[in-house]
């Protein structure tokens, strides 16, 4: 197995606020990794560093054995990195289909006919096919989350970053979302998933990374990590209900 993503001593600070403190880890192709940590631990910032929305203060990001640190986020998307947002951000004035089509046309650089086929596949996979002609702004929360996922899929990613996609959903909705993500994983896409809903994570991931104050405090097999002393003190102590 080869590494698809390597973060090498990645650091980012805003003045005296450190959101990433020399973060180093590698993710293998096809792996499904969960990231947990208290609010403000720097989880979303880590995603921003990987997608290129933020530039690191120091350190590098390697994707498919290439240093992508100087590349902008559009280039990184075309290279195969896609993400969904914690708060769904659809192009509200465009239809669901158009939202997905933008990702397929520009993110995956597909010709119109292929783009159409990719969109329909992605919409089918996420169960949004019935809403294709509706304005994205009219979707429910679950549907918006599904649209985030569909758009990310349509850009034909090899690495999919999910940011708290299960948050705010009912148990039933969450369960159907887990099934969708499992089916995406089955197609060979590498998944990195930030989530507070730990049981959702555990249904999919085979490795867990714990962040706290911009540092990795644990990394390994999920059950071992969750039961480790350092995680119980630093994370579970704060979010006892998780």
């Amino acid at each position, binding site marked *: 197995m080869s590494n698809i993503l390597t973060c090498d001593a990645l650091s980012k600070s805003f003045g005296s606020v450190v959101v990433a403190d020399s973060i180093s880890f590698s993710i293998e192709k096809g792996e499904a990794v969960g990231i947990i940590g208290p609010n403000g631990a720097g989880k979303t910032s880590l995603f921003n560093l990987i997608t290129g929305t933020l530039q690191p203060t120091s350190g590098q990001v390697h994707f498919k054995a290439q240093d992508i640190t100087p590349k902008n986020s559009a280039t990184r998307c*075309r290279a195969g990195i896609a993400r969904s947002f914690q708060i769904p951000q659809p*192009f509200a*004035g*465009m239809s669901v289909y*158009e939202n997905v089509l933008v990702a397929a046309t520009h993110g*995956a650089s597909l010709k119109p006919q292929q783009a159409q086929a990719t969109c329909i596949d992605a919409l089918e996979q996420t169960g949004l096919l019935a809403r294709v002609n509706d304005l994205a702004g009219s979707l429910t929360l679950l549907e918006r989350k599904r649209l985030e996922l569909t758009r990310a899929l349509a850009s034909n990613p090899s690495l999919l970053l999910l940011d708290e996609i299960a948050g705010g959903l009912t148990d039933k909705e969450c369960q159907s979302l887990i099934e969708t993500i499992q089916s995406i994983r089955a197609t060979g896409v590498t998944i990195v998933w930030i989530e507070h809903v730990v049981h959702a994570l555990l249904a999919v991931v085979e490795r867990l990374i714990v962040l706290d104050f911009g540092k990795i405090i644990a990394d390994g097999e999920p059950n071992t990590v969750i039961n480790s002393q350092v995680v119980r003190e630093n994370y579970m102590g704060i979010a006892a209900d998780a």
Partner: protein
Amino acid sequence: MVWVNSILQGVLLGGLYALFAAGLSLIFGIMRLVNIAHGDLIVLAAFLGLVVTSSLDIHPLASLVVVVPAMALLGYLLQYLLLNRTMSDDILPPLLVTFGLSVILQNVMLETFSADPQKMNTGALDTASITVGALHIGVLPLLMFAVAIAVIAGLQWLFYHTAIGRAFRATSDNADIAQLMGLNKKHVFSLAMALSLAVVAIAGIFLGTKTSFDPSSGPARLIFGFEAVIIGGLGNLWGTLFGGIILGVAQGIGAQIHPGLQQLAGHLVFLILLAIRPNGLFPRVAH
């Protein structure tokens, strides 16, 4: 009949105003950029048309073949090299830069072309008209109006039925998210400016064939453009055409009442509409 005539002329003039306004509306819609140099760019396009027409000895309308791509290229470079550096959530920096650009353009044109008013001669087209009952309709104004409709219909089609149009709309909706969907916003913004100046080129050539122009004509065109955009509702292209027509008709009727009232009537109608419908007649649906 004299009133019907002035209304009709006003409607046709509105087509030209819509052409002035379409490019403004387009870039404001896509990237929230208020281009104060828009009017001067229209005049620049007219001068460019004049140079091409006289040096190649061709019909002014044929010069569009050269002027449209030249202005589009200028637009791309202008946005890519200069204006992109000023773009942020704050709309003030690009506004100030285009204001400076406006001053520079006027002075460069004054230096290059002198202050003499110029006009492009369209030959037989200048005086050609068709007669409907007691009305005489100039072929050139009619052509201008038809082109305005074609340009707006074309832009509308582009926005809703092409990949680049979707890229414009996605970037307009949320540039940062569009960036994460593989769209480089700097490139998209530059394409939008190129498109805007392609429309400016058409507006400039028609301006130069309809009336005389000089290096200081730009700001007045900018005002007509702004008024048409705001009357119609920001970001709505068909609304912009309608805004142009309202402005043209108001001016036509004003001129009929008293020749000195032409411009004032247009501005008054604009002010009244601004007071009662500050978002314009057809604002783009807020979301």
